[in-house]
């Protein structure tokens, strides 16, 4: 199928660029680690409080770091006007959106594995109790984030958007992801709170809404 082939080509291109430039490894990951350390210093050293807040801190670190990843994803398109090439190619713009979202979701998942390990080490978060819910929260939450970020990442073509407008737009829109993913993570790691699979359902609803709407409207963002 043509659309699928185009999605794969766009995603593969983004992953290859990321693998070459190692931006995630060199900048995003250290940034996430810095955020976590800063959280620890501002809240700690009481072990109980750290444990209780760990799911929230984890996802805040992921959220902030994801902003950098989205920006990087579109930086590669902007360096030499490649985004215009995508616009002018007779390719379904939905494929561009889905491909970029898939690539950035993949990068974020890798990042999250490291962040989770860091959080469990730094804040004493236990990972064992419900691995399926934990995995579900990360996969669904990441898809939703990648959807918002890849849709509005187009705006970073404008220099002013890169500074403040992009995060100002993405962070409030992503509130449901933050809330639901934190709760699901808290439930899965056995901290007090939680509310069952309904949080995963909410994440799924967010993913469906953003991916489908993004697919429909992405072309409008690209056009002059």
């Amino acid at each position, binding site marked *: 199928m043509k659309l699928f082939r185009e999605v794969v080509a766009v995603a593969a291109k983004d992953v290859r660029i990321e693998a070459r430039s190692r931006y995630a490894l060199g900048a995003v990951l250290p940034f996430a680690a810095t955020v976590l350390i800063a959280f620890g210093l501002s809240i700690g050293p009481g072990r109980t409080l750290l444990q209780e807040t760990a799911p929230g801190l984890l996802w805040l670190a992921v959220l902030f770091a994801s902003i950098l990843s989205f920006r990087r994803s579109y930086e590669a398109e902007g360096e030499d006007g490649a985004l215009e090439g995508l616009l*002018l190619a007779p390719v379904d713009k939905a494929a561009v959106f889905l491909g970029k979202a898939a690539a950035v979701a993949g990068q974020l998942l890798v990042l999250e594995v490291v962040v989770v390990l860091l959080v469990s080490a730094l804040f004493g978060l236990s990972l064992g109790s419900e691995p399926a819910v934990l995995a579900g929260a990360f996969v669904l939450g990441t898809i939703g984030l990648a959807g918002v970020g890849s849709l509005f990442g187009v705006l970073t073509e404008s220099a002013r958007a890169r500074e403040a407008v992009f995060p100002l737009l993405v962070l409030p829109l992503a509130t449901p992801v933050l809330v639901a993913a934190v709760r699901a993570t808290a439930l899965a790691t056995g901290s007090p709170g939680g509310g069952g699979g309904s949080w995963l359902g909410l994440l799924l609803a967010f993913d469906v809404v953003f991916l489908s709407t993004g697919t429909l409207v992405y072309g409008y963002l690209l056009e002059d």
Partner: protein
Amino acid sequence: MSSSGASNALLPASRPGSIPDRRGAAAIELSGVTRVFGMSPALVRVTLTVDRGETLLVRGPNGAGKSTLLRVMGTALSPTYGGGSVLGFDLSRERDEIRRRTELLGHRTRLYEDLSARENLRFACVLYGIDQDGIGAVLERVGLLDVAGERVRAFSQGMRQRVAVARALMREPELLLLDEPYAGLDADAKEVVDEAITAARADGRTVVLATHDPTRGAIADRTVHMEQGRMLPGEPARRSGRDQVTAG
């Protein structure tokens, strides 16, 4: 879902290739096209007709609006006022059809810095739905076969331009829009660009060439001059004998 951009899911879908060519129409017809950036006009009431198979040369100093004109023709920019058609398709409503048949070689080479020349061309092949077998041949033609595996980041401006030329060579678009294609190229590579123009002419395809390189453009059928976003009253068209250019 339509295949791209201007037409979108909220509008009636157009299937790829479902609209047949409109051979009867002129290659380009612009009527009162004006483009404004912020408050400064880059293109002022340009009215212009280019025939099928014609090679048009656009001359003018820097900032005359040559690039804007070609970008409007290639649907990279939309006119602020006025409109027209390219290859018989409406500039604002049928952009997909225009894009399928047009190649715009612009100032920016639209390459990915962290991909090699070959990888950039491969990705372009997927985007344009063309066969990847020809990549080696075009790379050889622009003299980049030896460095095809190296990242574009390390390339000079001239080498980048050659990759962009190679990408344009892989397609055989009905309309070829060349915006300063010789920039940074050595004599051999300039020759490749000229060969491409000659080949397009031989096929009866249309070429619009904007350049201020005085040694180039002799091949054109007609020359128009631009200044401050306006078409200057033209010299008589050499080929068709009628003056199709009206000043704004």
